[in-house]
């Protein structure tokens, strides 16, 4: 029995669904049809609801479909025996019950039949038609209207909208690089242009209407270029030559109605060819035995094409004023390449390259830039043909240098040596240490002797004791001459015999009292120095130094004695203070010996300033001497501070007022000139400022960036110090306080 009921309800629901579908389709078709012709949405909706109602009436959507369902089941299923009506009987009699049971048994395996109204195609076709009209009609209209009138967008607008300021709709930038570059044409909505300089830029800007509209291209300095109006778009074409910034401004009846962000124009220069010679040696010698052809190679490249490459070689011959030059251009077979390695052999024979000649050559290349190609040349290379027949002076000059004495022991050197010895005393053996100490002692002695003779001290061998100098030093000549060998102009070595007689011409002083004829007894060093020192046979009486200098020198010698003593005793540590003292005395003796002469000149009497000042005559003087100046230059720091305040003040979706906008604009124009000079690094700040001007909201990140970047421009150099709270107190109290606090 349930199965029977199930079938009936299934069919009934199918009927309802079909009816509902038909109604909806009808309503939808009416909606589409109406919306093509009527522009008011409520009317269209009302129309479609009415259509729905009418079709609902015809399809009997809201009536009970039980009977229809039963009728349909009777039609579709044969076994029902037209007895389904019995189901509605309230109290069936026995016959009816039996029939019902039979029916249930028969229908138990039956499926719910599908009942689709055959007339459903009508609304479907109606919908298809109305869809066709909905989409097709505007196309037809467009074609029709395109023919008679130009400017469909304007025509679409009502006069009210034409009275409103035009609204920016789109902008397109087409970049056409120069033909020689072979780069593709770029076109897009991005108005930031970055192209090879010489590219043609074409802007196409569209507005919703163009009545009374003038469009300008403006740079950061406010200079403007006018767009050309073609039909419904504005066009401007120009050639990109240098880097800069621009914005598009639209004026409508003398008022600025649109201003774009600042966009970047970046002119990428066409670089000159690059030449990278293989040889890094700029200066080379060529010898007789070398081959007479030189292989040179270089890598030449360009960002586009190299049209021509060559070598310029110059041969220089002769010397002094008689130099002749010959220039030859050696072309290279490769041409019109982007990058290649060029090898060329230079035939020196052909160039008539002879010994003593010089060859200079360099690489050159042109690229394909038009109208003026770029040109590059490499470093100049030198090849010098060595002329072996000449000896050069420079070589001889160096020979003389080697005669210098290798070492000269000064007091300072002795100190250094001693310190060195002390420092490494731990590392070396006792024997070595002792011998080094002894050697320094010898040096000290030699120095002492050298200074000693200036004081007329007797020389070593004239003292009764043994010869302190090492044996070898005393061999033929004596120590003194050895010591000073490097310093004296010893022309006549080995002519000691005539020494006494052969005195230098310039020295006409008579040393008559010098003991002659006793070469054994004579101080040999003194003999050498005789010509230089002014010693009147008596050391003590010589007039070389004044008394104080002599005493200083004597004190120095004393210290030297002590120092030598300790050095000889292998106690360099103890010797060191004496050495230092000696040095000190020597230095002060040197200073003493110098003479300073004070320059005498006119020494004016001091001016009594107070008396003299302002006592001039004041006849021709303008008494009301006063003038004003004011610094009207932009105070950027203040402007930045104000803009920072504005950034924090601006709430989302709120427009800036006139003054605020003015401030941001001022900073923007200042910054843009700065950006120009700083090669577009502050770019982001500028575009953010522009966003502010255009009343767009900044995201939190953008705000932070802007604030951080602007902070750097505040130039706050006020040091952190005490607080400077401005507060005015009671004058009397304050006075009393400060009076009593002291």
């Amino acid at each position: 029995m349930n199965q029977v009921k199930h079938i009936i309800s299934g069919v009934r629901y199918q009927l309802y669904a079909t009816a509902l579908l038909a109604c909806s389709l009808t309503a939808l078709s009416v909606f589409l049809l109406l919306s093509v012709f009527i522009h008011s949405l409520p009317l269209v909706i009302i129309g479609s609801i009415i259509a729905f109602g009418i079709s609902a009436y015809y399809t009997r959507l809201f009536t009970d479909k039980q009977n229809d369902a039963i009728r349909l089941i009777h039609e579709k299923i044969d076994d029902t025996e037209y007895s389904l009506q019995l189901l509605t009987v309230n109290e069936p009699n026995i016959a009816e019950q039996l029939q019902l049971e039979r029916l249930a048994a028969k229908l138990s395996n039956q499926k719910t039949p599908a009942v689709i109204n055959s007339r459903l195609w009508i609304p479907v076709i109606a919908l298809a038609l109305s869809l066709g009209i909905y989409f097709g009609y505007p196309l037809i209209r467009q074609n029709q209207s395109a023919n008679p009138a130009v400017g469909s967008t304007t025509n679409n607008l009502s006069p009210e909208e034409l009275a409103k300021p035009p609204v920016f709709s789109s902008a397109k930038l087409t970049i056409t690089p120069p033909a020689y570059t072979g780069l593709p044409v770029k076109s897009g909505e991005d108005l930031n242009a970055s192209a090879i300089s010489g590219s043609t830029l074409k802007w196409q800007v569209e507005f919703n209407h163009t009545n009374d509209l003038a469009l300008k291209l403006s740079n950061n300095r406010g200079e403007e270029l006018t767009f050309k109006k073609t039909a419904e778009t504005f066009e401007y074409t120009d050639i990109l030559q240098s880097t800069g910034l621009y914005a598009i401004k639209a004026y409508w009846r003398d008022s600025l109605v649109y201003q774009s962000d600042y966009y970047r124009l970046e002119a990428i220069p066409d670089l000159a060819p690059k030449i990278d010679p293989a040889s890094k040696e700029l200066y080379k010698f060529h010898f007789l035995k070398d081959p007479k052809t030189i292989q040179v190679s270089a890598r030449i490249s360009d960002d586009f094409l190299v049209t021509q490459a060559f070598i310029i070689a110059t041969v220089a011959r002769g010397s002094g004023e008689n130099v002749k030059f010959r220039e030859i251009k050696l072309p290279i077979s490769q041409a019109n390449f982007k990058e290649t390695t060029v090898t060329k052999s230079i035939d020196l024979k052909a160039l008539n390259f002879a010994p003593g000649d010089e060859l200079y050559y360099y690489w050159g290349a042109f690229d394909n830039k038009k109208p003026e190609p770029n040109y590059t040349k490499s470093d100049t290379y030198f090849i010098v043909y060595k002329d072996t027949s000449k000896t050069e002076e420079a070589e001889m000059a160096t020979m003389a240098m080697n005669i210098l004495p290798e070492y000269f022991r000064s007091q300072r050197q002795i100190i250094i040596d001693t310190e060195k010895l002390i420092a490494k005393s731990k590392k070396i053996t006792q024997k070595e240490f002792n011998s080094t100490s002894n050697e320094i002692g010898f040096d000290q002695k030699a120095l002492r002797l050298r200074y000693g003779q200036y004081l007329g001290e007797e020389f070593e061998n004239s003292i009764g004791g043994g010869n302190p100098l090492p044996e070898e030093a005393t061999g033929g000549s004596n120590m003194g001459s050895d010591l000073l060998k490097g310093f004296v102009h010893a022309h006549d070595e080995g002519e000691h015999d005539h020494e006494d007689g052969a005195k230098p011409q310039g020295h006409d002083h008579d040393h008559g009292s010098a003991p002659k004829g006793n070469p054994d007894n004579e101080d040999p060093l003194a003999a050498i120095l005789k010509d230089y020192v002014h010693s009147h046979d008596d050391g003590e009486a010589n007039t070389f130094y004044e008394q104080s200098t002599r005493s200083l020198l004597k004190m120095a010698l004393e210290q030297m004695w002590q120092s030598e003593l300790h050095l000889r005793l292998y106690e360099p540590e103890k010797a060191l203070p004496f050495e230092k003292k000696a040095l000190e005395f020597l230095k002060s003796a040197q200073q003493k010996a110098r003479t300073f002469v004070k320059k005498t000149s006119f020494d004016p009497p001091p001016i009594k300033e107070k008396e003299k000042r302002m006592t001039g005559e004041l006849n021709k003087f303008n008494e009301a001497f006063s003038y004003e100046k004011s610094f009207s230059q932009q105070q950027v720091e203040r402007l930045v501070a104000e803009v920072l305040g504005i950034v924090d003040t601006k709430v989302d979706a709120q427009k800036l007022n006139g003054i605020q906008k003015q401030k941001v604009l001022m900073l923007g124009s200042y910054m843009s000139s700065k950006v120009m000079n700083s090669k577009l690094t502050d770019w982001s700040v500028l575009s953010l400022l522009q966003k502010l001007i255009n009343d767009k909201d900044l995201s939190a990140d953008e705000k932070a960036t802007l604030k951080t970047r602007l902070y750097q421009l505040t130039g706050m150099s006020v040091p952190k110090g005490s607080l400077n709270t401005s507060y005015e107190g009671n004058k009397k109290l304050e006075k009393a306080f400060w009076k009593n606090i002291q």
Partner: protein
Amino acid sequence: MTFTVLILSVLQSKWLLYLCLGIVLLMQLWLLLRSANLTKKRLWIRVCLNVLVWLVVFLFVFQPELTYTSQTNKVILTDSNVPKTYVQKVKDSVRAGEVLSNAEFIRLIGKNPHFIDQLGHIFLLGQNFSSETLGRLSQKNLTWLPYFSAEQLQDLHWNGIVKKGDIQEVNGKIAVGDTHILRLKYANKVLDSLVLEKGLNAFHFSFPAFTIGRTETTLTLDNEPLQHIHFYSHTPQPFNVLFILQNPDFESKNLSEWLGKNNHRVEIITTIAKDAQSKVSINKASQSKTFNADVVITDPTNATHALVKKAVNEGKSVLFINAMAPEQDTKVINQALGTNWRIKRTSNEQSVNIADNLSALPYTLETSLNQQSVGTYPIAIQKKVGKIGLSLLNETFPLKLSGDSLTYNKIWASVLQQLSPAQSDNVLIQAPVFVNTQTSVTINNPSVTTNKITLAGDTTQLSQSAVNPLSFSTDYIFRQSGWQTLQDSLNIFVDEASGGLQQSKQIQQMLLAHQKFENNSSVASAQVLTTTLPDWLWYVLIILGLAALWLEPKLSF
């Protein structure tokens, strides 16, 4: 009306609830007794269980009270955020007899309005107390023990309104459990920072106000924002600087131009010959004819000049530059202006080099009570009625010529900062300002004396300070958060009331007000207190009862 009140009172009282519970019990029993297919034993068990659960629910509604006696000599009132261990610690250390929570206190008060009279010394632990509680505590001996969890700001102050170029200071306290870095940031720029050690840290940040208008900076703890610091920075008033010179010199010319470029008005009076003066005005205001100098810059020889003396007496500032012979110069200044400059020679050289291209006279200024030195330079300011500055620097313009304009700026900006005399219309508001919390607004040295001030679209009365006739103040409670206007051009940021800072400020104010009415007499005795079972116990009991009811039919015995 009376009827509604009656209904309300009936609804609010628990009698309606008891009635419902009674009906529920009767229904339960009726339903149980109706279901006949139960053995007698099971029926009894079930009835017992039902009655038991009903009883628990009834008692929960009834809230029976347990009575006990306790010392109420010292009582701790805690806020619910304070952890139990900390409460116990405080209880032990103050030897308090009783610890009451906020809710418990309200309940006890509700039971017995005179309960409060019997309490002795009350310790408020934490700051989250309802105004009802605080209101009840008048005439009681109170001690506030604030409680802040770690990494929570305990105290924070800054200036709500500053002038551009003034130093904004942010002071506060925070306790941290680990080493952290506290930063004060403007957008991504760190203005000041401090490494916090474990424990309580007091921090002091300062930076010159660099904006004009509303400014938002953020206090961050390891990059986590802790508190936004809003302040309003307004345009500084330019100073009127007067140069009185014996003879024109390059140093003062440069300085005057620098001042001019920094938007100050400058007038230079130079004696160029006997009875002839040259006068240069920089940035002269077109309207004003008189030039009232705020700062006078002059040579020490002009210390006796009438204009200088007048300026000092009026509380303006005077700066002496170009000292040639400091020993005599200080003597002259001390005599003329009553200062007490004392200097000591430090070197026999003509001048000593302080930095590249910067030399000073070979003297040091000896310290004095009313004296403050400017940075590390040999410049100091002495405070009398006005401020008197003395610079021992030789010349500073070589700095500028050599391109070191930063140092030049630094020297003169700090001198000017310290020399600047008190300006008019100073608005002093200590931030943070909270909604619904009393805020003190002080206006010092107003240019127009008025007894009203408009703020946040409202007008309030100003009262003159008894001590300082130039100071006016008012207490105002802001009712709206966000930027609020103050007079015609200033703004003040009012923070949303949230967190411990606002609560502690409220308690502080309450305690301050309370001090006036504090009544030390208290009944120091043991008294009978009541307590109720905690809610969770009721919850457990009811759940247990319901579980038993659910389990009982499943068990077969």
